[in-house]
């Protein structure tokens, strides 16, 4: 049985789940805090973008409609930021996290035009965070039951990443530009998704497009298979980090890349998560002497 799956059922997953959860909260906080400058642009509801006749949308139409009022939008954004800070300072309980999800959902829907794939992904992972809160908040008395809740969260985060890659490979295999290896050449000509320097390079050396396009296919196909292997897990994760840093640099998709790299943390083993926790605590202690008190 692959190492990651074997350790998943045998060992304590609390640290792995906690790292993913808190990293996601910090990511969402940074993202939403950056919205403060663009709060005038937060006025759109995505009602018309999703299944218009769905019962869910209709049931909450009045809530979504609220986001059209600027004062309510500002209140929701400020409330969400405060709840995110609360999550970071103390283990969230079910009520406060559910409130955070409601606030986040409304500001997310109310700021559709400012979102990218990264915000979408972090929003979905934030919903999965409810499983972590169930495990960490004292909802369950027994340690074993808590452990199951942490596992549930990790299963969903890992599924999300693998589903994303699998779906991307399937979609790309249908596209002529991807199959011909010219996709990168054309994508980098889109002003919104290209760094001007990357655009200049690809226009001067168009053959680089094939070198950039085909490995994307190969990586996205291999990731869901190799991430479970004892020997190849680390190399494929390092390749993934390099791949997403490349996307961030060449296409200016920083939030998407940061989200993916953060969600890779769900593939840590419990031992690696423990080491990671010790290192981060060490860094924090060096940064602030008060950290030890907080941690204690």
């Amino acid at each position: 049985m692959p190492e990651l799956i074997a350790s998943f059922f045998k060992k304590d997953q609390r640290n792995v789940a906690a790292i993913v959860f808190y990293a996601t909260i910090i990511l969402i906080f940074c993202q939403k805090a950056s919205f403060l400058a663009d709060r005038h642009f937060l006025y759109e509801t995505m009602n018309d973008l999703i299944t218009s006749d769905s019962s869910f949308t209709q049931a909450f139409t009045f809530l979504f409609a609220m986001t059209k009022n600027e004062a309510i939008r500002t209140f929701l954004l400020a409330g969400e930021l405060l709840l995110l800070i609360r999550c970071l300072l103390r283990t969230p309980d079910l009520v406060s996290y559910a409130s955070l999800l409601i606030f986040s959902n409304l500001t997310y829907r109310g700021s559709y035009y400012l979102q990218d794939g990264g915000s979408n992904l972090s929003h979905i992972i934030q919903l999965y965070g409810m499983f972590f809160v169930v495990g960490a908040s004292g909802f369950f008395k027994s340690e074993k039951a808590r452990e199951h809740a942490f596992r549930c969260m990790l299963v969903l985060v890992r599924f999300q990443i693998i589903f994303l890659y699998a779906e991307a490979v399937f979609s790309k295999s249908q596209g002529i530009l991807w199959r011909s290896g010219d996709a990168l050449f054309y994508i980098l000509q889109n002003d919104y998704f290209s760094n001007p320097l990357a655009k200049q390079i690809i226009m001067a050396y168009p053959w680089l497009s094939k070198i950039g396009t085909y490995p994307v296919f190969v990586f996205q196909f291999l990731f869901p298979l190799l991430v479970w292997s004892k020997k190849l897990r680390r190399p494929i994760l390092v390749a993934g980090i390099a791949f997403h840093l490349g996307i961030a640099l060449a296409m200016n998709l920083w939030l998407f890349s940061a989200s993916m790299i953060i969600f890779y943390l769900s593939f840590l083993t419990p031992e690696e998560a423990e080491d990671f926790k010790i290192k981060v605590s060490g860094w924090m202690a060096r940064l602030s002497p008060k950290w030890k008190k907080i941690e204690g």
Partner: protein
Amino acid sequence: MKSNRERYLVFALYAAVVFHIVATVVTYSLPDDSKGLLALGKAYTSDIFFQKWNFFAPSPGVITDKIWIQCHHQEDRWIDPADEILKHSYYSPLPSGYRRTYAIRELSTRVHKSLKAITSEICNQQAKPSEEFTYANQGHNVDLTADEMTICKEAFERIKKTKAYIDLVKVSREICDERFAAPSISNPSIILSQKHPFPLSAVADGRLPEKAYYKMSVVDFEKGEGSCQN
């Protein structure tokens, strides 16, 4: 586990996980017009777990939809608000206001799509492939073709009532207000344009001019004239 209650709750957690995974995989591949239980599943995934990362596949978004705005504070000057932000990304990975470019892109793309649909419906115009772009299409994706059509007056009237256009005007107005630190008296004039990619075949033939070659389609809402390309 100490009690049966906890056992049942843990079972419910796993049931929720299995349901979510199955629902996501199954309903994500369903057509939008699914009915009955499948429609409910579709609503669950599309409303709560809406997935938005398919911009680059199977057909990558290669056309840059742009707007030019003329704020009424400065009568003669047309500005490209997205370009003003994007040009800073040469030096800074995340230039200030970068996310606004997403709003401009999303809205201008939607208005373009609506224009094309409305023009073919009201103006009774069939899109004609542009000769200039037919060679770009050889061996490549239809996305690279530029179908031209002239927009009639009725189509302009209709497009101005669409949500995408109203939102685009709102965004343009906010850009002008912020730029001149004063609320606009009237709506700014807007020109919608599309920047098409330089075809690879032309680069291979050494036909890349010093200045990048772009095909622009221009729609001037103020004058009510223009040609639309998909």
